């Protein structure tokens, strides 16, 4: 269980996060939503251990992240940064393989092939990464992150080591098919490896379809937290996003947020 109470972060004289409380259970899928500059990425930085908050602390199974070694953290949590720049000519296979925590381990090759297949990258494996399109590059990074958690979760005796996965805007540049594929693959990973998944999403419809729980942030404060149908209320969203909108019902049964036509 990943949890934090009363988390506050000050950055350049501004409180970017104020008294945020969040707990993520194994296998649970949480989406952080909110307008630009709401503090979503800052929250993710705290949950990854990259940033130490001024107030409060983040705990994994009761231990503060700052007390876990870098190696232990790498085995337990995987992180997709919002942007990744890579200008050297690594092949797709090499970039994905960088997600291996134990590159020489017996099942490393098996996991690498699984990662490539899960994100439709088998045919691209030999291509130089810088020549790929934006969406293809994003899939390579997603596969790298998936691979890290998948290998890290394998404890040897067919049991799994639980952990968590942090995805900062995993859907950027992806086409519709790969957007759904991506969130489905990570939802499956969450169940199989008992990992909590926390992702920053802008697409409220995707969040409603795939997340078990939403956390709505505005200017560093939690405005609402709960199931998609509880959080996605038209009045609340209009106030937070300052945009006229409507909440419809998707045929699949989850709320569908659309902008209101004038």
């Amino acid at each position: 269980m990943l949890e934090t109470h009363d988390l506050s972060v000050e950055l350049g004289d501004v409180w970017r996060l104020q008294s945020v409380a969040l707990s993520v259970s194994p296998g649970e899928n949480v989406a952080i939503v909110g307008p630009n500059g709401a503090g979503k990425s800052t929250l993710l930085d705290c949950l990854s251990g990259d940033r130490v908050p001024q107030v409060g602390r983040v705990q994994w199974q009761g231990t503060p992240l700052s007390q876990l070694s870098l190696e232990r953290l790498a085995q337990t949590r995987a992180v997709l940064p919002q942007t990744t720049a890579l200008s050297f000519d690594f092949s797709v296979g090499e970039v994905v393989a960088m997600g291996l925590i134990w590159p020489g381990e017996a099942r490393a090759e098996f996991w690498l092939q699984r990662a490539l297949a899960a994100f439709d990258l088998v045919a691209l494996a030999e291509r130089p990464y810088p020549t790929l399109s934006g969406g293809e590059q994003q899939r390579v990074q997603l596969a790298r992150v998936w691979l890290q958690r998948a290998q890290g979760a394998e404890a040897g005796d067919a049991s799994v080591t639980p952990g968590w996965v942090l995805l900062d805007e995993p859907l950027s540049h992806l086409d519709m098919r790969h957007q759904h594929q991506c969130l489905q693959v990570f939802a499956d990973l969450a169940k199989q490896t008992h990992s909590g998944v926390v992702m920053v999403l802008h697409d409220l419809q995707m969040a409603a379809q795939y997340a078990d729980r939403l956390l709505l942030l505005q200017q560093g404060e939690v405005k609402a937290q709960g199931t998609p149908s509880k959080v996605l209320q038209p009045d609340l969203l209009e106030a937070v996003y300052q945009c006229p909108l409507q909440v419809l019902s998707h045929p699949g049964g989850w709320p569908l947020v659309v902008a209101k036509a004038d």
Partner: protein
Amino acid sequence: MRKLAQPRWLFALLGMVLLLCAVWALRQGVYPLSWPQWAQALWAPHDATPASQVLWELRLPRLLLAMLVGAVLGLSGAAMQGLFRNPLADPALIGVSSGAALASVAVIVLGAAWSLEPGPWLLPLAGFLGGVAVTAFIYRFASRYGRTHIGVMLLAGVAINAMAGAGLGLLSYLASDQALRQLTYWTLGSLSQAQWFQVSGLALILIGALWALTGQARALNLFLMGDRVVTHLGLSLPRMKRSVVVWTALGVGAAVSVSGVIGFVGLVAPHLVRLLVGPDHRVVLPGSALMGACLVVVADTLARTLAAPAELPLGILMAAFGGPFFLWLLWRHLNGQDWGGRDA
């Protein structure tokens, strides 16, 4: 697009080339040696024959020093390009070598002026400190928010080179005649004063640098994707940066202290390796050391034989070939072809 699919072919190929270059270099020279004489002298290091003395006191230490200088410069160039996330970083281009040269020359000139006899360790130490100072300065100067600006870095290097040039000019004004000769030797680069103790000293530094830097190869790979990716995969970012700054400065400083400034090896060697096997630092770092050794052995043998019995300064020869190579790199870049890396 990559010429060699397996890294071990690169090592086999470069090892073979280096061996051939070594035999060729030991054969070439003003003093003619027939094959039997040569082979006999090679097995008799302590003979009083001229053949044995030429081989063991002149050609062999010089050959080994050329290999070591080339290996250290190639390795340092590859590591520095990783640290700057840019394939155009080169210890000489961004001023690290001239910083090291300035510090070493200051020790020679001021030491002579104050009638101090600098010990053999003092020059490498001065070179090291000069190299560290410049590397740390350039790195901090050109980096903002975890990104390194290539333009700023190269221009800062131009400024450092100019300042070091001014310092060297000033010192040459102050220098005695004998110190002046030494000074020219430093700024143009040469291996003509190769000594056995330099070989053993530089070999120790090469072993240390190879061990320390290849240990950071995975961190350097991850670092190319961003600072945090290193930490996310469980490796220490400060340790990697410290290791690269210290060992490249130590290596370049020591290389400069025995051979003067030899440019472009650190740029050309890693680039050729990346063309052959791709950018993985686990291969590029040792491969660049081997490639650098080959390049400097060939260049130095040409330097001492092209105008025999006179000698061309090695630094001039490297610049004469390296300059056009660098222009070719820029040309390929402008035309949008792959070059083992694009602007960060």
